[in-house]
């Protein structure tokens, strides 16, 4: 055994092969070194890209077998590549900082052809004007992925209970007001909860934290979870908001509120604080998805093709309203795409305030001491 897996890398490679075999991803099980993979494409993504609405047209036009697995947090996806599944996936769809800050330096993804893909950014919304920071490496030379879905993501209120105005003014202090105990929920999205608890504690999440700040984080996490009426998934949060079980919940925005809004509950609204502890006094956080080609030694030639396919106006609209959650897409900068959105759809994704909310938000970034903070938060949840 030990000889077989003489190095960690060897083990990784082996386990990836096994993973592929078990997942039934490689149709032929263990494949030969340089097989023709134009007939298949494997996507690791947030939900939406795995929907039949998005994938079926691509399947029928290319004849390729497309498999997509959706997960609802970034670290798990990155770690699956690290654990050896780099041999399995062709595309990875995660939030903005990971491509540039982690996956590219670690050699988990490969560059895409800048000449081919940069022009697409010209027709996106103005904020994505090329060269777009999150699509490029640190030096701004190499292109690392394509953008599509994005949105502000701070918290959600029931405007019948807390007005948008009041929520925007009070911002993260909503969670510091003892009167609000038992009135709010926490969406089970632990990485984002770490950011939010930093904001509630009054400091920027996206930096290395002092011991005092770490201690303050632990205390804040305890009081936040103790006061939480409910911790749960998006459906639970929306149901609790609509029914009046809670008045607001943290970690949320268009991504989580849109299903309720699309259902007619327009009193459920993602809110971005007017100010907060982050760079430039900003109080909100936003996310932008970057889809990159995995550094698979045997990558499918369909990977880049798929990146182009989703830039199409109609496909982009489908992605925006794929099953699950509804989100603005960068391609709305293209009038052909924007024209496809109905007034109700625009209202569901809070188009009216999208620009100002994005302006009040800093972009999602890596928290250097995330592990330490997460452990503190997990313990706080347990003790609550």
């Amino acid at each position, binding site marked *: 055994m030990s000889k077989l897996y003489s190095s960690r890398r060897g083990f990784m490679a082996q386990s990836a092969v096994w993973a592929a075999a078990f997942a039934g991803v490689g149709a032929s099980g263990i494949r030969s070194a340089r097989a023709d993979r134009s007939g298949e494409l494997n996507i690791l993504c947030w939900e939406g890209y795995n929907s039949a609405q998005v994938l079926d047209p691509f399947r029928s036009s290319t004849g390729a077998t497309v498999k997509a697995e959706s997960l609802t947090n970034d*670290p798990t996806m990155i770690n699956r590549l690290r654990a050896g599944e780099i041999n399995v996936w062709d595309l990875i769809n995660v939030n903005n900082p990971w491509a540039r800050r982690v996956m590219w330096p670690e050699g988990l993804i490969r560059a895409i052809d800048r000449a081919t893909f940069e022009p697409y950014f010209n027709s996106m919304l103005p904020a994505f004007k090329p060269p777009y920071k999150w699509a490029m490496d640190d030096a701004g030379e190499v292109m690392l992925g394509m953008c599509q879905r994005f949105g502000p993501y701070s918290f959600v209120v029931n405007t019948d209970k807390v007005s948008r105005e009041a929520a925007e003014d009070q911002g993260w202090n909503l969670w510091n007001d003892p009167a609000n105990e038992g009135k709010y929920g926490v969406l089970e999205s632990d990485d984002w909860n770490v950011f939010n608890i930093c904001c509630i504690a009054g400091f920027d999440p996206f930096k290395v934290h002092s011991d005092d700040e770490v201690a303050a984080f632990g205390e804040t996490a305890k009081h936040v979870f103790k006061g939480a009426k*409910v*911790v*749960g998934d998006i459906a639970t949060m929306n149901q609790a908001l609509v029914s009046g079980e809670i008045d607001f919940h943290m970690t949320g925005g268009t991504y989580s509120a849109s299903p309720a809004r699309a259902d007619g509950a327009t009193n459920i609204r993602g809110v971005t604080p007017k100010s907060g502890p982050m760079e430039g006094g900003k109080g909100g956080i936003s996310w932008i998805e970057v889809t990159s080609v995995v550094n698979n030694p045997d990558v499918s030639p369909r990977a880049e093709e798929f990146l182009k396919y989703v830039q199409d106006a109609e496909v982009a609209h489908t992605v925006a309203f794929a099953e699950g959650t509804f989100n603005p897409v960068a391609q709305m900068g293209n009038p052909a795409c924007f024209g496809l959105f109905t007034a109700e759809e625009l209202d569901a994704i809070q188009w009216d305030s999208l620009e100002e909310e994005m302006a009040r938000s800093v972009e999602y970034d890596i928290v250097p001491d995330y*592990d330490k903070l997460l452990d503190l938060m997990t313990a706080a949840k*347990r003790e609550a």
Partner: protein
Amino acid sequence: MAAGSRAPGPRFALPVLGLLLVGFAAPLLAVIGYSFMPERTFGLWQEPTLDNYASVFSGTSYISFLWSLALASATVTVLALVCYPIAYGLARVFGRWSPLITLLFTIPLFVSENVRLYGWVLFFIKGGVLLGTLKSVFGIEIESWLFTRGIILLGMVYVYLPFMLFPMTLGVAMVPHETSEAAADLGASRWQVFREVELPLSMPGIVIGFLLTFVLAVGAIVEAKVLGGQQIIPITHDIEIAFTYAQNWPLGAALAVLLMVVVGVLVIGVLRRFDLDAVLGRR
């Protein structure tokens, strides 16, 4: 007959043995192996360490362990009290209605547990079936029970009811009717018949029901998440967090191993103290 390895029995058992090794032993060994790896790593062939166990014991994971064990014990207790009369009825009283009633208890099993629990959410939520009806029909307004600890227990009792009920029904059905009658004929009161004859003779079914529901309930996670709104973090949820958000597989593996050990010791302890064969009079 050729002896030893040439006999057809062991040879034909090989595929099954292989399947068991790959499907059962291998994942288990992998989990045990991971629990000795350095924290937040993903390889299985590094220098083993006890750090994960040390951090479990120095941390607050015991709270989750205690919640899981307490909830499972409470579930088993409530189920025992709820199910015995039903089991007795199914085996002895309901007669030709028994199959229908059994079916009614079985049907929910065909619906996903999550769907059923969300059904309960809609039932208990503010303005939902229960509170909404109370308010609009009777004008009574009471606090919602959703997202409380009590409702987690209710959810678990509901979800695991068939797993207690059916072994118990078999257990009660195993008690020959004439044996109960004989006890009564010898002067035993209803209660004495139950205590001296029916309870001990239905014990095999009861113990199997206890063990089954306890082991399942210790592994419960959705009830606390969906109905309880995570007011309680059971150990399974801790394990899940370790494997997902925390990306700390070794820690999750250590928690899983400890859970297996705790449950294993409890189950073996019960089986030791309670010899099914002896009760059935087979020894």
